[in-house]
């Protein structure tokens, strides 16, 4: 576990040494603030629910930017070699990197707390729904980060990693969104695979075990696959 901490620490420092962390946080704050104010103006409701629907879209674009360099850079510069010949397991490397990106994702979301303060000032928001939404954001972050990490593991090029990651996340978002309102096993399974429906439950203020299991198991599966990919250099 200490090795996971070591990797985590280095990656977090790296985020804040490079402009990535600041750019991502700034972009997220600007766009989420814009959607918050616009949706508030339209609906006149003291809730985060409507603006969060758009927030998911921004997160799909920004999360791959956070994760793009995690493994792609190590593959490209060859630093993967000294890293993997240190007494550390592949899982520890992957998990440490996953945690660091997830942490930055959560830090990125922190400024949205201001909107809650604002809502509390102008009216009386439903705190239960807000807490559930944040649980949803955090769990969804785990999934997004693990998808980004997976893409970063299979390429040496950070830009490719970011673009494929964004496309993958948007597909995951759209398949759920596009099939809502349709009946039949096909659409309902698409809705289950897509993130939109699961996320929607959280923003309504419901923490459903099924959705929690969806995010946690999907994330765990992806981390497992990433470890296998990192390991694959051994049998390629």
């Amino acid at each position, binding site marked *: 576990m200490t090795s996971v901490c070591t990797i985590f620490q280095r990656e977090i420092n790296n985020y804040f040494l490079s402009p990535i962390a600041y750019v991502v946080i700034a972009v997220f704050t600007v766009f989420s603030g814009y959607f918050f104010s616009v949706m508030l103006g339209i609906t006149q409701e003291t809730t985060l629910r409507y603006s969060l629907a758009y927030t998911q879209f921004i997160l799909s674009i920004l999360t791959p930017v956070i994760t793009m360099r995690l493994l792609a850079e190590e593959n490209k510069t060859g630093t993967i070699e000294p890293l993997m*010949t240190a007494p550390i397991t592949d899982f520890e490397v992957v998990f440490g990197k996953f945690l660091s990106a997830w942490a930055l994702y959560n830090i990125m979301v922190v400024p949205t707390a201001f909107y809650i303060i604002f809502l509390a000032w102008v009216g009386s928001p439903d705190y239960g729904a807000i807490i559930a939404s944040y649980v949803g954001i955090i769990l969804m972050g785990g999934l997004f980060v693990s998808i980004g990490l997976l893409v970063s593991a299979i390429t040496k090029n950070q830009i490719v990693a970011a673009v494929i990651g964004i496309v993958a996340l948007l597909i995951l978002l759209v398949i759920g969104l596009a099939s809502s309102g349709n009946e039949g096993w096909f659409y309902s399974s698409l809705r289950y695979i897509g993130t939109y429906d699961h996320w929607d439950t959280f923003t309504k203020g419901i923490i459903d075990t099924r959705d929690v299991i969806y995010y946690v198991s999907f994330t765990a599966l992806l981390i497992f696959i990433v470890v296998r990919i990192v390991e694959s250099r*051994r049998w390629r």
Partner: protein
Amino acid sequence: MIKVDHLAKRYADVYAVNDISFEVHQGEILGLLGPNGAGKTTTMRILTGYMPATSGSATVAGYDVFRDSIDVRRQIGYLPENVPLYPEMRVSEYLSFRAKLKKVPYRERKKKIGESIEKCRIVEVKDQIIGTLSKGYRQRVGLADTLVHDPKILILDEPTIGLDPNQIRQVRQLIKELGEKHTILLSTHILPEVEMICGRVIIINKGKIVAMDTPLNLAHQLRSGNNILLEVRGDGEKIKNTLSTIRGVKKVVWQGNGGVNNYTVEAEGGMDIREDIFSNIVKNSGVIREMKQAPVTLEEIFHQITTQEQEVTI
């Protein structure tokens, strides 16, 4: 310390390393010598647990490299080719990251980092960002990293590649000093380097070991081409003919310009014919301006061995 037994590594249908066996003894500096693509890096990567072998086995300090990979890695300080480092980190930061990764206990960490910084003479750059360092300093930062957990064995892949002559000298000196405390396996394709630092050499070509001995013995072994270089003033043609009559001479090459002639006399191995040459030339009223034995360098041996091998395989 390192024992390699019938090791082989295959990529698709090409054998990068094909059935090699050797041992590195405690306290020894062993050089792995070979042309580019001979399988040096692959061998080292297998030993450091970066990739497994297709067949065969290897143990490092008693641990099997496949089964006890993590234990093996604790015993080894590995410097990969081209020394990949994180360019955005400071030198001391990087070393402390590496020390933590290598599980150097918290209390000793500062001391160990300080020691390796001092040994590798990078004190003056320890607060600099790695990305701004010159190649020579980077190389030494890499070396400091290999030393930070005080491993018994150092595996250095092309440690002097891409350095300028002064830096090469410094790094070689450093490796020699490290050899006093550590067992070292290093690879290179530069021959004088091996002659200077290694106690023993393994020459590999196309994934196979073609020679293994001390640099000096290798030179002796292959001294069949016993060449003597001459510079003589006198009748070129006549002297050439008289040289050919000396017992043990295989071939005489004559290059004349004006009164001064240059000869390369190739004698049979093990025979010293210099005195015969002297008396023969004097008899033919030649004046010897220079006579010397052409030293057989590792370079020739290397060339000889690796090209012989080629002829056999074709």
